[in-house]
């Protein structure tokens, strides 16, 4: 699976970091850092789905693999 971040919509709540700390973190300035490139690592798919689900402003989206 792929996860797309809509940077314009991300307001930095950090719920994704709580759900999937291996995939998303907020840096010291509070900016979202995506810690993977390409498809979500297979052992992190569950966490990725949770991160998408809890984003309060709809900034994360599960997308079909390219």
């Amino acid at each position, binding site marked *: 699976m792929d996860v797309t971040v809509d940077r*314009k*919509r991300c*307001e*930095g*709540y*950090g*719920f994704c970091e*709580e759900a999937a700390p291996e995939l998303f973190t907020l840096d010291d*300035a*509070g*900016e979202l850092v995506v810690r993977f490139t390409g498809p979500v690592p297979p052992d992190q798919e569950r966490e990725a789905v949770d991160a998408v*689900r*809890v984003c*309060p*402003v*709809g900034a994360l989206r599960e997308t079909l693999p390219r």
Partner: protein
Amino acid sequence: MTDTVTTSDIDLWAEDVVLAPYETYRKLRDLGPAVWLEQYQAFVVTRYRDVYDALHDHDAFASGAGVALNEQLNQKMKGSAVVSDPPYHDHVRGVMAQPLTPRALRAHKEDFQRLADDLIDRLLERGTIDVVVDFAQLFPLSVVPDLLGWPTDGRENFLAWASAGFNALGPMNERARADIPVLADMWAFMAEIAQPGRLRPGSWGADLVEAAQQGTVSKQLLPALIGDYLVPSLDTTVSALSSAMLLLGRHPDQWRAVRADHSLIPAALNEVIRYESPIRSLARVLTRDRELSGTVLPAGSRALMMYASANRDERYWTDPDDFDITRPDVNAHVGFGHGIHGCVGQGLARLEGHALLTALAKKVRTIEVGEPEYRVHNTIRAIAALPATLHAA
């Protein structure tokens, strides 16, 4: 309407339902994923999964045709972030959100904590207090107008304006009609305050006026956008803060746990907002036929998103009528809405709530609460009065 659509004559705005809504919500959830309310010419969506799905399908469940149950307010709010759709929505939301992101709000964290600590010190000296006036209203009123850059005049009207703004989001019933003159006063004041030079330079309000000068947002919309900062920042937060004091007072074991471990505070605030959702519902309008769990909602129909019911849905939550700050997945509630229209001020609300709960946890051993008196309001779960005595740690 086809004969497969479930209809109900339940009146969600009847006084007894407003004052004690949760049993009625359960009945509606059991009737089906979307129930047609003939009296209000709208569907009501009450189950968690369906509300969540609808909020995240903002193309089918659009906001641009209004989120109120009456045309008068829908017309008035058109073009605000709340009553608009992408791509325009994303632009105006982006402008409004700038000072409200958790990142931007960090600058105020220490100030808020100091103000919260001072407030609790004062309340501890007082003996019996009214939670609503002395705590839940006082704190937002002591931070929001200054952040907005508001002059001293007009502040005495803020609570009445905020309450009127949310009453008018319901159906155009007696309650909404009674508040229309109050709103007219507010709109007149907003138009005046939107003139350059009225709001404190560098404030959120003045930045918005500046954005209008530069053409980033419409000058015509400016009064509505300033109102969008003010109105939703009061009644909602007042509701949540009042409920927090009530619920933590009624659950001394959970209050002890919070005092022993302050890292539970964010979950405690989320559980308060799940359990007593400050905004009971807002509406959407279908842009196309859209199915929710097997029921088709036709294009053009209006659908109420019942946040306060979704947050009590037994299909999603375990023991939803229990208040439990250790509940797993508590931040999945839809008390701030969810998706692209999710509450833009939730970072501010959380910052206020966290500062106050931290101050209470540091200083207050027991919260002794009396019986709350609820206010009959079209949109807000509103406690009118709540006596309490705080006992120092």
